């Protein structure tokens, strides 16, 4: 199974982000990675949590609009050029990246790139063919 991402709709209002972090903290949910997309009017917080179902449940109970999306996690070398190698594969396969973000597991060891593609199946095939390691949801959530 792929990585499950929790997306939260955010109005531009002071304190809203802190309400999310507080809600997750109180429920003992750990955040693996996150990114915040913002426009002039609203934002979307995307995060990978250790317990997706619980994160969704508690956020919804606290009045947030929550969506769950599957994203693809690819392991990259944590050194100059590590991400480039992967993006060259993406480029060659003519894949569109909807968005991406990244985090490192232990500095200098390995980085992880999180992707949302318009054609995830083609993306998986391209990475497999190029010999990159795709991380399963289990691996990422329990890191």
């Amino acid at each position, binding site marked *: 199974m792929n990585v499950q991402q929790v997306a939260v*709709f*955010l109005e531009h209002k002071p304190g809203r982000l802190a309400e999310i972090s507080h809600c997750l903290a109180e429920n003992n949910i750990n955040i693996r990675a996150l990114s915040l*997309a913002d*426009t002039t*009017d609203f934002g979307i917080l995307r995060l990978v949590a250790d317990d997706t179902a619980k994160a969704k449940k508690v956020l919804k109970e606290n*009045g947030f*609009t929550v*969506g769950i999306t599957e994203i693809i996690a690819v392991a990259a070398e944590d050194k100059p050029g590590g991400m480039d190698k992967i993006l060259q594969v993406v480029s060659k396969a003519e894949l569109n990246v909807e968005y991406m973000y990244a985090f490192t597991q232990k500095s200098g060891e390995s980085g992880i790139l999180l992707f949302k593609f318009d054609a995830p199946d083609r993306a998986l095939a391209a990475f497999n063919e190029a010999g990159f390691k795709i991380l399963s949801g289990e691996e990422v959530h329990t890191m």
Partner: protein
Amino acid sequence: MIWNEKDETMPREELEVVQLTRLQAQVERVYATVPYYRQKMDEAGVAPGDIKSLQDIRHLPFTTKEDLRKNYPFGLFTVPMDRIVRIHASSGTTGQPTVVGYTKRDLKMWAEMMARSLACAGVTRKDVVHNAYGYGLFTGGLGAHYGAEEMGCAVIPISGGNSKRQITLMKDFGSTVLLATPSYTLNLADTMADMGVDPSELKLRVGIFGAEPWSEKMRIELERRFQIKAIDIYGLSEVLGPGVACECIEEQKGLHIMEDHFLPEIVDRDSFAPLAPGEKGELVFTTLTKEAFPVIRYRTKDVCQLITDVCTCGRTFYRMPKITGRTDDMLIIRGVNVFPSQIEEVLVGTEGVEPHYQLIVERDGSLDTIEAQVEVSEDFFSDEVKVLEDLALKLRVKIKDLLGISCKIKLVEPKTIQRSEGKAQRVIDNRKI
């Protein structure tokens, strides 16, 4: 069922005779008992004896909300206080409240008008009526209540607010008819969904909604969410309260005006010259039988035309279409007339947003700007920015196509727009004009 078959299906010629006789008596009484009306008629050079035909009504001066305010609180009552048995008042959010009074006979007439309306909506004495109109100074609650009792229904006088309890009681009591404002009904629908109650668990079959303008799209939405027929009822406290006109369940096309008690006219919005019934203009009412607080040519600020075709339900009264805008609610944005219900029509008809909305009007320099705040629906929410931006763009284009104005769309989090407990506040006008 027609509640008062004899009166409601009277041939037009007979009806007009009844109307004229009553009009003449009403004008005479008002002239004799209310100094303010007498003065206005004297100034206009018209005497009660000049009213020889229904068309002569055009010689009488109009009555406006301003006249009511000038005579606050009881200046336009025609009877002494010992004959008044009930007083209602408007909320006064747009100025001094307007106060209206009723005699015993007025209340009896009102109950009949409301019973007629209920019958029009297909309600019978076997129904359990959940009355969520606000009880109090507002005419909605008590007006609807006495009509439902008059009919012999089992009435639940729940009033507005405490939505969870409303759903629970509707379920437990097996309510079959819901009376409420459309905006509060929407609030109830959300509450019901949050509680995980399916409409099939309720016995509701009809909803009678009024006291604020609502669109055809909203009708579809309310009918779908409660699995009911949604009926529009019209009334205003200055004329009576609910029960001045109501849609029939047979057609749901236009509201039958209780013309034997309320004489409707359509006048030009600017010149106030009388128009033919089928022409669009401001709706004006003269009460024909009210005792305590009659009004002569009261300008309602509602804009419509009259439907004169005979209805399949058998009632001979003219109909008024669903009111989608009042001259009061009308916003003038950069010279364009905009009714909030027109924007509602777009929002309710678009997938991805909730039917709750609020319009914020500002003046930026000399330019008016309008922003519609709408809630993104849970099911539609996406992790991708472009999906939400496309939604906002789609709404903007639709509004532009319909109204010719640019309306900024602000997507807000679900359940953040204030929910109606009665009449919804749709517009916040921050312009200092």
